[in-house]
C-alpha cells in the first residue's frame, strides 16, 4: 500500500466507526470495540506511514469548481514532515485514550455515544492534519469544533454545578472564579463553541482574503488558490502586488490576513483571551479532556499556525509571540492557586500552548519553528498521560477532584503515581525527559530572537519581554506541577475514607499510562540516552527548510547552554518552593505562606489569581451581559424608519399569524357533517369554475 492509501485508512476507519457507533450505540455497548478496532487500524497505518515515508506525498481531488474565476478548490491528503508526525501522534493517542475509556466510562449511561463522538473527533482532526490546503483545513477545523461540542456536552442533561450534589461534594473548598450556576456540560459545550466562533470568524475572513489575493495575482493560472504550495509560492508576488484592503497593502495586507487566520488558531488553541472555554471544557469526561488537551482540539490551532508559517510576516510573528507569552504567563499564575486536580492540568495546558506559540513566534531564523512544533508533539504525549492519570485518580476517589482531600495516593495507586510523576518531570523540563529539549529549544529561540533584534537594533524589547515571560513561566510551571503531584501522591492521606478505597485502574489502562510515560522520556525522541545530545531530535522537523540558523554556531551554542542553566535553576526554585510549602512544612502555621495554602485566602494577589485575572468575569460582563443581552434589547427597539423596529416587525408577524389562525379556526367546528358540506361546496365550486 502506498502512503496515501494508508492515510485514507487513518481518515476512513474512525469515520466508519463513528457512523456505526452513532447508529447502534443505544442498542449495544459493543460499539466501543468497533471504535478501538478502527483506531488500531488507524494507528498501525500512521505508524507504517511514518516508518516508511521517504518523500512527501500529495494527492488531491477537485471538489468545488468556479470555471469563471478558473478556481477549483480541492480536497485530499498531503503527507510531509509536519503532517506525518502529527498524524502518528493523533492516531496513537486516540487509541490509548479509547482503551483507557473502556475502563473509565464502564457502565456509563451514554457509554457507546462517547466512542462514536470520539471516533468522529479523531476523523475531523485527521482531516485537518492531512489537509492539502487551507479550505480542507477549515472544513476539518469546524468538524473538530463539532466533535469537541459532542464530547464536552457528553453528560448533556446534568444540572448546573450549583445544584449538582456530586459536584458540591467533590469540589475544592476554595473553588473561586467559577460561576457555578452557569457551569454544566451543556453550558460548557456552548461556551466552547461560541468562543471558537469568534476565532473562526477571523479564520474564515482570512481564508477569503487569501483566496482573493492569490486568485487575483497575474501569475495565477487556475487551480486551487488555497492549496499550500500555491499559497506559499504566492507570498512574494502578494507582497509586491498593488492589492489594497482597508488601507493595507503588500506585506501589511499579508500580515493582516495571516493574523486573521491566527485568530482562529487563538480560539482553538485557547490563547489569551480566548482561553476561557478550555477550563470549562473539563465538564466532559476526563478521558475526553485527555484527547482535547493533547492531540486534537487545542493542538489544531498550533498545528495550523505551523502549517501557514511561510505566510506569516515578521510583524505577524511578533504579535503571535506576544500572545503566546502572555497566555503562558497568565495561565501559569492561575494554575498556582487551583485546588481542583483537573483545573491545574487545564491551566497548564493553556500555559504550554502559550509556550508553543511563543516558540513559533520567535521565527524560523531563531529556530522557533522547530521548537514550537516539537513541543506540540512532546506535550501531546505527556499531557494526554497526565489527564489519563487524572481520570484514574478521580475515578479512584469517586469523583472527588479536590487536591486538599488527596495525599498519600502513591501507596494506593503506585502505577498511576509513577506515570504521572514521569509526566510531571517531563512538563517541568527535567533533563532526560521529553520536554527538556523542546521547551528549552523554545526559550533558546526566544533568546536568539533577542540577539537577532539587537544585531539589527530594532524591536529589542518587543523580543525581550516575551522571553522573560517565558522564563518566569518555567519557574511557575515547576511550582504548580510539582505542587499538584506532591499534594496528591505524597504525604499523609488527608481524607482517610477516600484513601482507603483508592486503587489503580485495570491492567489495560495501566499499560496505556506506562506506554505514554515511556514515550515521555527524552531518548525516545532524541535517540540518545545523553540528555544533552540532541541526537536525531525530530529530524524531519528540525531539518525542514524553515529551520534556518541565523546566528554563528558559537553564539547559538552559548544561548543553548545559557538557557539550560537558567531553566534548570528556575525549575529547581519552583520545585523547591512547592516542596517546602506543601511537604516539608505543611502544618507549621505562621504567616510565611498562608496565602498559598488551604487557609482562607484573603490577600489581594490570591484573590486576583483565584478570580482568574477577572478575564472570565470581564468577558461575561461585556459580551454575555452587555452586548448580547442589553445590546440585543437596544437593537430590537431601534427605529428602522417609518416607526418600524425589529420588535414591531416581529410583533406584527405574530399578530397576523394569529388572525389567520383565528379565521381558519372558524371552519374547525368538529362537526363531521359541516366538514362534508364544505367538501361538497368546494367540489361544486371547482366544477363551476371549470365549466363557466
Amino acid at each position, binding site marked *: 500500500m502506498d502512503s496515501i492509501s494508508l492515510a485514507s485508512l487513518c481518515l476512513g476507519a474512525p469515520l466508519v466507526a463513528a457512523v456505526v457507533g452513532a447508529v447502534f450505540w443505544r442498542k449495544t455497548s459493543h460499539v466501543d470495540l468497533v471504535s478501538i478496532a478502527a483506531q488500531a487500524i488507524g494507528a498501525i497505518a500512521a505508524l507504517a506511514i511514518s516508518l516508511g515515508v521517504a518523500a512527501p506525498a500529495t494527492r488531491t481531488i477537485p471538489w468545488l469548481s468556479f470555471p469563471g474565476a478558473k478556481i477549483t478548490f480541492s480536497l485530499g491528503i498531503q503527507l510531509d514532515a509536519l503532517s506525518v508526525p502529527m498524524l502518528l501522534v493523533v492516531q496513537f493517542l486516540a487509541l490509548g485514550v479509547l482503551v483507557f475509556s473502556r475502563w473509565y466510562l464502564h457502565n456509563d449511561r451514554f457509554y457507546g455515544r462517547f466512542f462514536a463522538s470520539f471516533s468522529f473527533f479523531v476523523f475531523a482532526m485527521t482531516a485537518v492534519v492531512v489537509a492539502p490546503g487551507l479550505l480542507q483545513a477549515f472544513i476539518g477545523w469546524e468538524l473538530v469544533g463539532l466533535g469537541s461540542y459532542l464530547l464536552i456536552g457528553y453528560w448533556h442533561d446534568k444540572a448546573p454545578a450549583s445544584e449538582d450534589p456530586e459536584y458540591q461534594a467533590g469540589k475544592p473548598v476554595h473553588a473561586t472564579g467559577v460561576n457555578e450556576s452557569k457551569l454544566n456540560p451543556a453550558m460548557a459545550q456552548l461556551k466552547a463553541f461560541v468562543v471558537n466562533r469568534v476565532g473562526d470568524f477571523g479564520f474564515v475572513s482570512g481564508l477569503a482574503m487569501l483566496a482573493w489575493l492569490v486568485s487575483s495575482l497575474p501569475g495565477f493560472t487556475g487551480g486551487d488558490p488555497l492549496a499550500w504550495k500555491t499559497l506559499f509560492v504566492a507570498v512574494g508576488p502578494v507582497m509586491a502586488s498593488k492589492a489594497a484592503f482597508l488601507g493595507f497593502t503588500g506585506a501589511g495586507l499579508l500580515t493582516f490576513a495571516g493574523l486573521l487566520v491566527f485568530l482562529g488558531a487563538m480560539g482553538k488553541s485557547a490563547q489569551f483571551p480566548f482561553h476561557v472555554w478550555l477550563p470549562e471544557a473539563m465538564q466532559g469526561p476526563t478521558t475526553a479532556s485527555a484527547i482535547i488537551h493533547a492531540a486534537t482540539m487545542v493542538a489544531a490551532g498550533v498545528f495550523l499556525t505551523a502549517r501557514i508559517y511561510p505566510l506569516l510576516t515578521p510583524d505577524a510573528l511578533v504579535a503571535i509571540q506576544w500572545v503566546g507569552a502572555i497566555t503562558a504567563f497568565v495561565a501559569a499564575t492561575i494554575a498556582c492557586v487551583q485546588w481542583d486536580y483537573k483545573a491545574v492540568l487545564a491551566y497548564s495546558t493553556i500555559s504550554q500552548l502559550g509556550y508553543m506559540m511563543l516558540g513559533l513566534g520567535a521565527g524560523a531564523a531563531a529556530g522557533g519553528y522547530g521548537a514550537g512544533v516539537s513541543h506540540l508533539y512532546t506535550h501531546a504525549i505527556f499531557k494526554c498521560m497526565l489527564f489519563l492519570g487524572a481520570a484514574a485518580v478521580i475515578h479512584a476517589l469517586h469523583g472527588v477532584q479536590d487536591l486538599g482531600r488527596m495525599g498519600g495516593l502513591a501507596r494506593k495507586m503506585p502505577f498511576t503515581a509513577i506515570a504521572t510523576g514521569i509526566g510531571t518531570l517531563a512538563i517541568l523540563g527535567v533533563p532526560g525527559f521529553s520536554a527538556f529539549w523542546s521547551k528549552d529549544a523554545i526559550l533558546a529561540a526566544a533568546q536568539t530572537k533577542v540577539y537577532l533584534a539587537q544585531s539589527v537594533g530594532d524591536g529589542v524589547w518587543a523580543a525581550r519581554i516575551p522571553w522573560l515571560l517565558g522564563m518566569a513561566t518555567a519557574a511557575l510551571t515547576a511550582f504548580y506541577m510539582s505542587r499538584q503531584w506532591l499534594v496528591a501522591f505524597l504525604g499523609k492521606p488527608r481524607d482517610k475514607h477516600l484513601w482507603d478505597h483508592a486503587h489503580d485502574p485495570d491492567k489495560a489502562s495501566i499499560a496505556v499510562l506506562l506506554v505514554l510515560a515511556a514515550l515521555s522520556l527524552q531518548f525516545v525522541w532524541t535517540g540518545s540516552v545523553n540528555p544533552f545530545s540532541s541526537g536525531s531530535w525530530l529530524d524531519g522537523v528540525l531539518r525542514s527548510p524553515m529551520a534556518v540558523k541565523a546566528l554563528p554556531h558559537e553564539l547559538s551554542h552559548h544561548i543553548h547552554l545559557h538557557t539550560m542553566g537558567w531553566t534548570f535553576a528556575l525549575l529547581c526554585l519552583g520545585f523547591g518552593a512547592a516542596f517546602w510549602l506543601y511537604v516539608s512544612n505543611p502544618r507549621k502555621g505562621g504567616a510565611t505562606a498562608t496565602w498559598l495554602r488551604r487557609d482562607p485566602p484573603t490577600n489581594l494577589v490570591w484573590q486576583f489569581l483565584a478570580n482568574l485575572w477577572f478575564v472570565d468575569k470581564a468577558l461575561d460582563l461585556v459580551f454575555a451581559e452587555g452586548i448580547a443581552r442589553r445590546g440585543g434589547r437596544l437593537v430590537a427597539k431601534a427605529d428602522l424608519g417609518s416607526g418600524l423596529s425589529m420588535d414591531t416587525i416581529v410583533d406584527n408577524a405574530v399578530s397576523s399569524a394569529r388572525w389567520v389562525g383565528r379565521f381558519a379556526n372558524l371552519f374547525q*367546528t368538529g*362537526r363531521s*357533517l359541516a366538514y362534508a358540506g364544505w367538501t361538497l361546496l368546494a367540489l361544486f365550486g371547482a366544477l363551476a369554475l371549470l365549466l363557466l
Partner: protein
Amino acid sequence: MIEFLLSGPDRLLPYLAVSAVLFSLGALACAIRRNAVGYLMGIELMLNAANLNFIAYGRFRTSEAAAQGQVATLFVIALAAAEAAVALGLVFAVFRTFRDVDLEKVRTLHGD
C-alpha cells in the same frame, strides 16, 4: 362543452342526463342525509354516475375509447367495493363510540 354535447353523436345526451341526475341525487344525499348509511349510499350514487359517463362516452366513440372507458369503470367498481368496506367499518366504529349512526352527533373532531 355544452355545444359538443348537443351537437355530438346521437343518443349520448340521454345517458349524460341520467348520469347528471344520479350525481345530483348522490350529492344531495350527502348534503342532507344525517344517517351515515344514507350518506354512504349517496357516495355510491355519485361513483356510479361517473361510471355511466365513462361507459357512455366510450360507447359512442372509437372502439379503443370503449375499451378504455370500460376498464376505467372496472377500476371504479373495485374502488367502490373497497371504499364501501372501509366506510362500513367506519360506520361500525362510529356506532360503537356514539351508540348511533346519526352524523350530526359526530362532532368531536375539534379536539377538546
